[in-house]
């Protein structure tokens, strides 16, 4: 099977100083790849570069056989890439329903939101509430649901556990695995919460100071005590 996402030699910088050096990775369809590393390792930059928010200075990103160079951010979702940004990016001035509709707006005809509400019954209850009235967990579900409404093939997920109670984090991780199993969704998961991420990931990549420091099966990474101490802090 050919890779869904192929990143080759990606280098990204703000101004003169590169934040990401020569990063290569692949994501297969239906695979969950966890990107781990300390603050400032370049995890968020990697996702922003993949979705086109930051133009890479070097390197190639191929998605489903198509080179993504020069594709505008607002076209990415049409290629099947959905990016849930750090801090979730719920539009707080819009209602839950409007946020969700926004996710599938580019599709013609617009998809029904019923499956999303089925997936997140809590959102259905709060359908008419404004984004800023939601709790952190609800916002994360909303951001996730909105991304899924676009029916993507690859989900770029930035720190979904940030600020959430462990129970809620566990729910979201379980949901991701379930989605992958049912729909073949591929996920590139950036996380500080290493344990949670590795618990559902197939593969793990460790970034350190903008370079790939290690990559392995998730289970192997979780067992590698030296690596955990050196880069992941547990």
């Amino acid at each position, binding site marked *: 099977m050919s890779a869904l996402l192929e990143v080759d030699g990606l280098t990204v910088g*703000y*101004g003169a100083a590169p*934040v990401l050096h020569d990063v290569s990775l692949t994501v297969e369809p239906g695979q969950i790849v966890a990107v781990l590393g300390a603050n*400032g390792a*370049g995890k*968020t*930059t990697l996702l*922003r570069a993949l979705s086109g928010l930051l133009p890479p200075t070097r390197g190639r990103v191929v998605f489903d056989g198509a080179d993504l160079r020069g594709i505008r951010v607002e076209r990415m979702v049409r290629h099947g890439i959905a990016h849930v940004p750090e801090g979730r990016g719920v539009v707080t001035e819009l209602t839950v329903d409007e946020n969700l509709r926004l996710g599938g707006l580019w599709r013609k005809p617009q998809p029904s939101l019923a499956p999303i509400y089925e997936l997140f019954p809590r959102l259905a209850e709060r359908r008419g509430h404004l984004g800023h009235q939601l709790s952190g967990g609800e916002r994360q579900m909303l951001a996730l649901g909105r991304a899924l409404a676009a029916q993507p093939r690859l989900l770029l997920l930035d720190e979904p556990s940030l600020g959430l109670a462990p129970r809620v984090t566990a729910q979201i991780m379980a949901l991701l695995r379930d989605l992958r199993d049912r729909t073949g969704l591929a996920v590139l998961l950036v996380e500080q919460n290493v344990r949670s991420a590795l618990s559902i990931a197939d593969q793990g990549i460790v970034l350190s100071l903008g370079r790939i420091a290690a990559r392995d099966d998730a289970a192997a990474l979780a067992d590698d005590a030296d690596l955990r101490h050196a880069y992941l802090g547990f």
Partner: protein
Amino acid sequence: MTALKDRVTARMVAPASRRRLNPYLVVAVGAALVVALTYTLPPFRTYQLATIGAYLCVTAGLTVLTGLNGQLSLGHGALMATGAYTLALWQNKFNLLAVGIVVAMLVTTAAGLIIGLAAARLRGPYLAGLTLAVAVVVPSITSTFDETFNSDQGLSVVLNPPPESMTVEQWQAWLCWAGALVTVLALALITRGRFGRDMRAVRDDETAAKLAGISIARTQVWTFVISAACAGLGGALFAVLAQSVSPGAFPLTLSLFLLMAIVIGGLGRLSGALIGAFLLVALPALAHEIGEASGSQRLEGNLALTFFGVVLVVVMLAAPGGLASLRVPRSWRPSHTTRKKKH
């Protein structure tokens, strides 16, 4: 606390303390130059020279307000009108020019204090909107109190003839440039002292300035008052130059012209104010000549208007960072754009 304040403000404006021209020397050379010019230029050019001097009073005060303190005022045309009308009323009653000019400045300063007090609580577009309202509304006051201000016709200004050894134009040029040079000297001394540092500190980062013990509101109000006094002086000189005052001489576009002049001249520099004042006289004169050459009356004033507008827009779009980058020296603002970056 004071030590911290000194350190913080000194860091903020460090490059400003590099060697600069001695302001007394500059003013002395300027005075000599003006005197020399008034004996060499033809009368009309001397009159234009006088006009530049009158404009310089206003642009110098405005560039300090906007460039050094970061407050945008679109109301300076109205403040000029205040000074001009005060002088006209005074002259027609007492005919004592020297006192009249001081009174005009005082009255305008009082008006500036009122606007400044409001302005210190406002930022960005709100301040712009308020001062714009002042610029639009103040000329209409002449109709509200038409018995005093004689509505759209305005007032003529009683003036004694100049000393016998001088022409009217020479006398006007001397008067206006005396005002302009005193203004420039005063502003140069104020802005290089502690108050100047406070002004810049408030402009660059209000929170940091506040932490350093600078009173934001007081700094802003004082700056506004100072620049209002300058505008009052300029307005009074204009009344002398034109020997009349009318609301039509102080439209909104005058305020916009003043803004354009300091932006193009280089925001926050007194030399920029001079360039701006020169442009305010030269560009309309140029437009006037083009208008006459083409024989179209409609072209005359409007060509200058259009030209000013185009230059303003082009300068703003061409300068990366907009207004901030037009300030000099540029090294004052290195961190502003990088600060927001995250990854």
